[in-house]
């Protein structure tokens, strides 16, 4: 991880139009930086805007508001043509490699696709050799070169998706729930692989997941999202050991712990469910579920405020004052 900013977003927003003039506020006013070589984790419950944010940041979606910089150059209003010099620096891997890999293509052709698109190798033979190197790097045996996606296990398919993403040495890979469809033992294999590749090659990850344990393990910094906004962002250790936004605290406490000795701990549960992103609540977006909400929270929307390396969008930083449950012991 370095101090060099790879990517910066300021007040990035994305609204999707619905019928009758209604709009889904998928991402609202998100400001963040991604540094070269770091892993920034994005957590939050389904529908909170993680995937949309990931796609906005690498310009697979265009924002309806806000600005975006890439290595110091503002690219917000770049045409696709103008942006193409950055395109190959930004890759994406998906939750379900099965849906993202063309079923009629062999592993070789899938991995060779970006190599061909950017004319990386002079000959077909050189391309195949490069593909074999990449397969070795992600732990898929070279003899599977001409197999089709359905002939691989879920974990192997994810490895092939990763090989394709690293083929042209990107600066950033957006990993959108890359292990959510995998069993825990296989999930760990992929997490180890992603970490090793980052050490060798130094690219940054934007690692999106709804699984807090996974995000905690892989991330240097973490952003917690709720209803299209960031409620808290900071170093992973701080976020998990001492959450300051009440939502982060509830999210952590809700994780069922794989330890039967901790089953009688009664934790306060969040009531109700996430409000609709079509009709956003007034004031703080979290106030309808927050047991600590005051009149001020119902009226005034808090913005991310920075304090000691951590940015929190809560008028009171209530999380910091609550007794801890799941956040304390592990991970030293």
């Amino acid at each position, binding site marked *: 991880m370095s101090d060099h900013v790879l990517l910066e977003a300021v007040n990035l927003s994305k609204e999707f139009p619905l019928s009758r003039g209604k709009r889904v506020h998928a991402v609202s006013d998100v400001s963040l930086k991604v540094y070269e070589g770091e892993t920034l984790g994005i957590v939050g*419950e389904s529908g909170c805007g993680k995937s949309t944010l990931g796609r906005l940041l690498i310009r697979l979606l265009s924002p309806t508001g806000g600005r975006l910089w890439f290595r110091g150059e503002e690219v917000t209003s770049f045409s696709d043509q103008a942006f193409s010099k950055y395109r190959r620096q930004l890759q994406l891997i998906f939750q379900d490699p099965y849906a993202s890999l063309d079923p009629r293509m062999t592993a070789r052709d899938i991995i060779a696709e970006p190599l061909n698109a950017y004319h990386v190798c002079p000959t077909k033979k050189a391309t195949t050799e490069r593909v074999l190197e990449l397969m070795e790097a992600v732990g898929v045996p070279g003899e599977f070169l001409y197999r089709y996606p359905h002939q691989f296990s879920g974990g192997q398919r994810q490895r092939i998706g990763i090989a394709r993403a690293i083929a042209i040495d990107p600066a950033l890979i957006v990993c959108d729930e890359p292990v959510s469809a995998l069993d*825990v033992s296989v999930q760990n294999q992929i*997490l180890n692989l992603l970490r090793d590749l980052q050490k060798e090659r130094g690219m940054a990850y934007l690692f999106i997941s709804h699984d807090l344990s996974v995000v905690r393990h892989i991330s240097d910094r973490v952003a917690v999202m709720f209803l299209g906004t960031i409620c808290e962002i900071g170093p992973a250790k701080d976020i998990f050991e001492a959450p300051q936004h009440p939502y982060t605290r509830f*999210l952590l406490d809700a*994780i069922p712990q794989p330890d039967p000795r901790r089953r009688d701990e009664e934790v306060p*549960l*969040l009531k109700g469910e996430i409000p609709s992103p079509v009709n956003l609540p007034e004031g703080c977006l979290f106030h309808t579920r927050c047991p600590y909400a005051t009149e001020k929270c119902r009226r005034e929307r808090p913005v991310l405020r920075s304090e000691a390396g951590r940015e929190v969008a809560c008028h009171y930083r209530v999380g910091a004052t609550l007794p801890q449950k799941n956040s304390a012991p592990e991970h030293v």
Partner: protein
Amino acid sequence: MEKNMLEIRHLSASFFTQKGEVKAVNDVCIEVPKGKIVGIVGESGCGKSMTVRACMGLLKYPGRVVGGEAWLDGKEILSLPEKEKCAIRGDEIAMVFQDPMTSLNPVVRVGKQVTEALRLHRNMPAAEARREAVAMFEAVGIPEAKKRLSSYPHQLSGGLRQRVMIAMAMICHPKVLIADEPTTALDVTVEAQILRLMKKLCSDGTSVLIISHNLGVIAQLCDYVYVMYAGRIVEQADTFTLFEEPLHPYTRGLLSSVSSLRRGGDKLDTIPGVVPNLLHLPAGCSFSLRCERCEEKCRECLPDLMDVGDGHKVRCHFAGRGEKA
């Protein structure tokens, strides 16, 4: 000892495909004592869902039960004619699925779907069934219960739909509730609410068989746990023993995968390799291909499910020696 409300005995079920027989459930025995929560845990494809589907008589072609029995409160149910099975399902034994949308009818109001079981099994008049449904909606924590009866499934959030499913399953006060990954599709804050609800149901006397791949859910909820691998039970024990003194290398691998993720550090523990193909199971122990301790005899002969004391059983040649890897 509490008596068993559900007893699955040597159940085997297979899919007869063009490529051959897929042995999805292989000689599985499971007991659910009265008022207890029993869990089945294992990775995807290991046969958890097929075990309970077989036992409910819900296997679809080309799947078929090839042997075994299922006793519900002292009555064998697999050999019953289809009509009698129908009479029992939803009444004495009920099921909740991972995705409520696949089991709720999208074009029928949820109130009607919930009261249907009462009208069918109890012959209850409409007004009375409606009162029962409102009470059950309230019991499972559905706000504005009366109003909700007239909602269609798509008008409800995922968490509310799962509560409707549970209300539907509980409406006839079944002796046994089977829940197949009831929280897997839900967000973690909603999952926590549903887990608390399941605990409450059980403290009211319902016997529950819950399937999950999530060891956290199992640890929080279950009294007793069965670990499945490639269609077979490989270990079973009370929850504390299973988490604290696991004996099967597969159980240990699963637990250390989870705990290394929580502990942090550079390298996460993994189980090498992948689950074997159920079409071509190895002759010996099904875990032998991935097991660090694998020896000659593991490849050649299938270990028995051996009792090592206090209801702890393990299917491993090395288990009886009290060794720890």
